[in-house]
């Protein structure tokens, strides 16, 4: 199953999204929160993201969900710090973080590929709520 990392400037947001997506996911689904800074401040930390990517890795690829543009910068920096082989198995989704994570978790849970899970996450942009 594709692992999922949820990067938010807020630790609460990242944890809460992982809990919500976890409800829809298969038992073994990796959903790793990388929210906020080590000292609890609001922000993103490339090293925390790096550790989360490693934790989410089961060999089937990892999708990184981000909240804001600056989280993309930290996520891409984390990718640059990965060794080459793993780096090629990580994608950053350009998707709404909550809606995309839930959709991605459902897709990843049934064993879809990283390409499919990424597409599903990004497609969540077009989901209507009513």
């Amino acid at each position, binding site marked *: 199953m594709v692992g999922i990392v949820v990067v938010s400037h807020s630790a609460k947001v990242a944890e809460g999204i992982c809990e919500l997506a976890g409800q829809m996911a298969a038992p073994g689904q990796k959903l790793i929160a990388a929210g906020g800074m*080590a*000292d609890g401040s609001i*922000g993103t930390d490339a090293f925390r993201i790096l550790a989360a990517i490693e934790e989410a890795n089961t060999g089937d690829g990892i999708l990184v969900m981000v909240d804001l543009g600056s989280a993309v910068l930290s996520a891409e920096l984390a990718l640059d710090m990965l060794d080459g082989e793993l780096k090629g198995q990580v994608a950053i989704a350009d998707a709404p973080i909550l809606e995309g994570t839930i959709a991605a978790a459902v897709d990843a849970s049934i064993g879809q590929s990283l390409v499919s899970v990424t597409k599903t996450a990004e497609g969540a942009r077009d989901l209507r709520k009513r």
Partner: protein
Amino acid sequence: MANVIAAIEALADIIIANKEKLTELDAAIGDADHGINMARGFEAVRVKLAATTTEDIGAVLKMVGMTLISTVGGASGPLYGTAFMRAAAIAQGQTVINNDTAAEMLRAAIGGIKDRGKAVRGEKTMLDALEPAYEAFTQGMAEGEALPECLELATAAAAAGIEYTKTIIATKGRASYLGERSIGHQDAGATSCYLMLSALTALAKQHRQEA
């Protein structure tokens, strides 16, 4: 130039002294944290610096970059972090720096910021201070100026760059949420760049006087 530890201390001092000012600038068109972010980062750098014994400029700058990456939190964290790491790669193993190396380090730092942030000049970011600063620095070199004068020219160009940021719309970073309403406000990141250059200028001049 004084040693690299003193230079980093000077950066930390000026950033921490301007924490509120930088935060206020960010409050107008961003999320009111640039000073908080940068001060948190340089407080952490100060702590690391106290335990640093190497005089390898590359090693010290790498430490600074890594520390900023893990403690700044905002966009400026990966951006300045990447900048310091790229400059570190140029200064690897060196303990003194001449004008040429300094220029190359600045160029590499700017390249890092552009690679990381995918911005170009004119988007109301730190690049609007740094790119003119680099040009002024190399211009000064071409005119045969010494390091303190080159840095002084670079600082003046960065100051002009800050003024320029007041006239343009932000198209990168959080200030872009405001669109046209970002006009009239100066960019916080350009300002922190300017402050760091001005601190290095002061240090270089003081160092020459002492020498």
